[in-house]
């Protein structure tokens, strides 16, 4: 049996009294593209953060590429996330002081790669996502779309098994959003990465193989789109 890229079993999470997830279970196969949709405040981002191990699930189990996150100490959890998962956020969230190259090279440097090798890999990814000409520029010198391309490169530079994207087109216009989605999908497919996209945009969800709709912290329904 093929190992799942991600498995959530009855995951719960609450912000003090505000319950965000109520026993959510979800499976993502390698290479699969899953869109998590739903209205604002339904728990989409919390689900993604729990799945990526950014937040620790308060109940239930999260298996990321076969590893039970609850059983891993913080350092190992971070290392697993750094090597096996990529994360793209709504505004890119690149470090403003660093060049695009250094931003993309950062996960590799944190992993202990040599600077030159990390920069070469970063430049390769910037080339692939179409912003190699701006490799020396800082995020503030570029458009939101260009930053988001670099954020995609940063998420994929480690060759992750799964990529988590939280509203990756939320800050972009329709055209730039389509470009980012196509880039994200094609780049993920090249490396065989699974993709979990949190979005409230039906156009973005249409790119997925499967749509999981959340409401009030529970999965309302799942639809296969492929």
């Amino acid at each position: 049996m093929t190992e799942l890229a991600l498995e959530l079993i009855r995951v719960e999470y609450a912000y003090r009294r505000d319950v965000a997830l109520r026993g959510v279970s979800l499976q993502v196969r390698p290479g699969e593209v899953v869109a998590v949709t739903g209205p604002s405040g339904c728990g989409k981002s919390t689900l993604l953060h729990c799945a990526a191990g950014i937040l620790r699930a308060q109940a239930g189990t999260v298996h990321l590429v076969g590893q039970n996150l609850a059983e891993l100490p913080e350092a190992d959890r971070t290392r697993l996330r750094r090597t096996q998962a990529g994360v793209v956020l709504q505004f890119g969230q690149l470090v403003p002081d660093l060049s695009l190259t250094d931003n993309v090279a950062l996960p590799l440097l944190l992993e202990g790669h040599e600077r030159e090798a990390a920069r070469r890999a970063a430049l390769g990814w910037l080339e692939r996502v179409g912003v190699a000409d701006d490799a020396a520029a800082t995020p503030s010198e570029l458009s939101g779309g260009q930053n988001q391309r670099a954020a995609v490169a940063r998420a994929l530079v480690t060759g992750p098994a799964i990529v988590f994207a939280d509203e990756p087109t939320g800050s972009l216009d329709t055209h730039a959003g389509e470009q980012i989605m196509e880039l994200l999908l094609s780049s993920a497919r090249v490396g065989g990465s699974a993709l979990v996209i949190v979005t409230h945009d039906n156009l973005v969800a249409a790119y997925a193989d499967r749509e999981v709709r959340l409401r009030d912290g529970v999965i309302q329904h799942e639809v296969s789109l492929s």
Partner: protein
Amino acid sequence: MNLRTLIELARPRSSTDRRRMALLVSAVALAGAFLLAGQRVARHSATYLDGWEQSSYLAEPGLRQGVVVAAVLMAGTACALAFQALRLGTAARDRRLTTLRLAGATPNQVRLVGAVDAGLGGLAGGILAGPLYFVLAAAVQALPGEARVLPAPNYLDLLAWPVAIVLLTVLAAIAGRSLRRGLVTEPTVDPAATGWRTKYLVIGLVGLALIVLSSMVFNLVTIFAQTAGVVLAASGFAPLAVARHGRRLGRSGDPLKMLAGARLLHTARPVGRMLALLVFCGGVAGVVMAMAVDLQATSGGVIQDDPFYLTGFAFVGLLALFAALAAGVALLAGTADDLLDQRRQLAALSVFGVGESQLLRSVRRRLTSTVAPAITIGLLIGGGLYSSILLRAEYSSSGRAFVVVLVGAVTGGLVAWLVAAAAAFLLRGQVREAVDPQNLRSA
């Protein structure tokens, strides 16, 4: 817009804003207390002949003027700290004021909000300055006679206090109104994003030339010229050195050094200004150190009139320490503001494993790798310049002064490193907040 609306809009809302206001009020209160002390000394007229037991610094009219100047310098330093406090928290304030513009406020109304914000801080600080001055004066009265450099307060101080309140309020309001950054009224490009290095290089070179030229002749005027040279050289070269250090760290393969370096490179000018002040403080301390060595040598191991000289050295040392603390606090506050401003990006970094401890290490590196060299260089410059004067005057103590200056500079640098490391530890709360995954939800 009436005053009530202005006050309502200017009122600090976030915890950062409140911290900024607390720093502003404290700095203004200190400035006010020193100003009140200065006016009290200036009004003092008693001499030795009046039979009081008082410090020679008050009894001799010539020295008394020096005490007034020192009090004004202390007030000036506190004002500089207040100005730094006004510049803090600008990211949050920028957003608030930009929202005001969007809501229809004119540029002048936005500037007025800035003036009222600062003016309120000035007013509160001015009110606190009175009690602070009276406490300071009472504390000084408890010291031994020679160290009593501040006369006992009298009823005229109660009249000077309201004047100080008005003065400080007006000054703060003017500063708040004139601060372009933090009062975004028109979209502007950072005017000095390019070409600033040449300007600072010229300033530094002018300072260096002044030091070299004034070293050729020794008299009272050239001492002032040398001091001015040190100030100019430090002001010009410090930002350039910070930028260079930032670039060097940025090229490192260590991601934490890279992050520290990139931030230094982008804040080279404000950080450089504070480091220039630290260099100057170190310079003053270096001079005092060399003077003390010289004095001990020339008096055969026993400093004649030691309470007099010790008071003088302590006075100058305190002034330098106070200014250095002001610069240190400004650096620390600027770092805290950076953390707040970049919290989303830093929280995103936590996804890749740059957690609280790593970020704290990066912040510590930023502070220690700049503050410690600044103090060491300052001590070497100050002590070195004074020792070279001794050498040229063929004083036998010059050799010993050089050794003491060298040991003092290394020790001072180590102490500064420890203080900066401890100060970075104080920022752990801000660091924890910055990497909190909750910041990722703000989208």
